């Protein structure tokens, strides 16, 4: 496909894109909204980032991100125990919301990235690719690890007055994870994957 027409999702302008495989950003000429971004080696980069993200996610969840020490008592918090505590305190709404936004959604997104770009990296388009793209598109606003990182920093300062606060082993992995997730969102270009799906369907139809 050398040329195609897309429609700006924000202002409904029809935009003719003459060279969709050029590297860079494609903006709507009418309203300036970023239509999509194309980078060379997107599949390889995404596969590498997703793998790194999975490892960092496991490390982040395994070790505590903060420890708190007061009058001979110490407590540790990692993602999982924080959520368990909320449930023990009968804070169901808070518990479910936090479990979804910092545990379930980010984990599912990393697994889906891996499940999609892993096979693509080895030249195979998985049959569940459309499903993965759909879930990734709908879950985007609900992963909030970056916000949680800021909250961890705020709590550190808040707790300093009540006792001794010790940054946990996983804080560094967590920082790297947030950075990699941000990087993935910049590199990720679903347009290119949809094009692959279109191509494959055309080949099937012609056989």
């Amino acid at each position, binding site marked *: 496909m050398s040329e195609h027409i897309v429609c700006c999702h924000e202002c*409904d302008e029809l935009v003719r894109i003459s060279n969709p495989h050029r590297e860079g950003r494609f903006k709507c000429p009418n309203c300036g909204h970023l239509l999509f971004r194309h980078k060379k080696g997107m599949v390889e980069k995404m596969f590498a980032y997703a793998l790194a993200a999975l490892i960092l996610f496991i490390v982040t969840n395994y070790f505590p991100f903060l420890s708190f020490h007061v009058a001979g008592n110490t*407590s540790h918090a990692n993602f999982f125990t924080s959520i368990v505590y909320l449930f023990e305190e009968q804070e169901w709404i808070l518990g479910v919301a936090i479990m979804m936004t910092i545990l379930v959604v980010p984990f599912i997104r990393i697994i889906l990235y891996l499940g999609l770009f892993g096979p693509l990296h080895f030249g195979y388009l998985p049959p569940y690719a459309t499903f993965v793209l759909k879930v990734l598109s709908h879950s985007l*606003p609900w992963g909030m690890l970056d916000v949680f990182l800021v909250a961890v920093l705020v709590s550190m300062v808040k707790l300093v007055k009540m006792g001794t606060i010790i940054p946990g082993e996983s804080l560094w992995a967590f920082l790297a994870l947030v950075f990699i997730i941000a990087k993935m969102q910049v590199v990720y270009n679903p347009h290119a994957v949809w094009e692959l799906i279109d191509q494959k369907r055309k080949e099937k139809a012609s056989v």
Partner: protein
Amino acid sequence: MRAIEKGYATCHTCHQLVKMPKDMKHGVALCPRCGEEVHQRIPDSTQFTWALVIASIIFYIPANLYPMMHVHTFAGTQSDTILSGVLYFLETGSYLIAAVIFIASIIVPITKLLILIYLLISVRHNKPVGQKRRQKLYALTEIIGKWSMVDVYVVAIMISLVHFGGLSQIEAGEGANYFLLVVIVTMVAAMQFDARLIWDTNTEKEKDARDA
């Protein structure tokens, strides 16, 4: 040239350009590529957005009146609402924390709601002025939305760290639940708002296209 004039729509999920059938019901077609529903405009977008905006304004009142958390120590119990928490940090000299909480819990939700109300009113009698500016405001609501979660997360982290029985213990207040609802409902409200409405000026040509 706009898609609606040509009878096209874009799929929200896969961004495929879809030719809308002439005889479609309620302006809905199925995307040939991903199978999701495609609309030229989100159906009843302004009504849903208004409803969600009003709901979050209602939730925002108890979110501010009830405490976000209770801190029990041997010296007694201290309960802080959003505002009293900010004031406490101002008084004790933690200006940075005061600023972060003030921005995330007060400025962000209020700005978001004001922008959405302004956009909702402005698309009602839509004039072709300041569209780019309004588009930018809409983009802003989408970006800042989730950052109000900071305070909710802080409460959760403090609960899970400080649980030493009679010595010191932190509990979530009723305000935290309401505030969480404000964040989620305003995020859904921003998603329900169809930014293309900003660019739908009521010219005859577009009216025809919409009625067709």
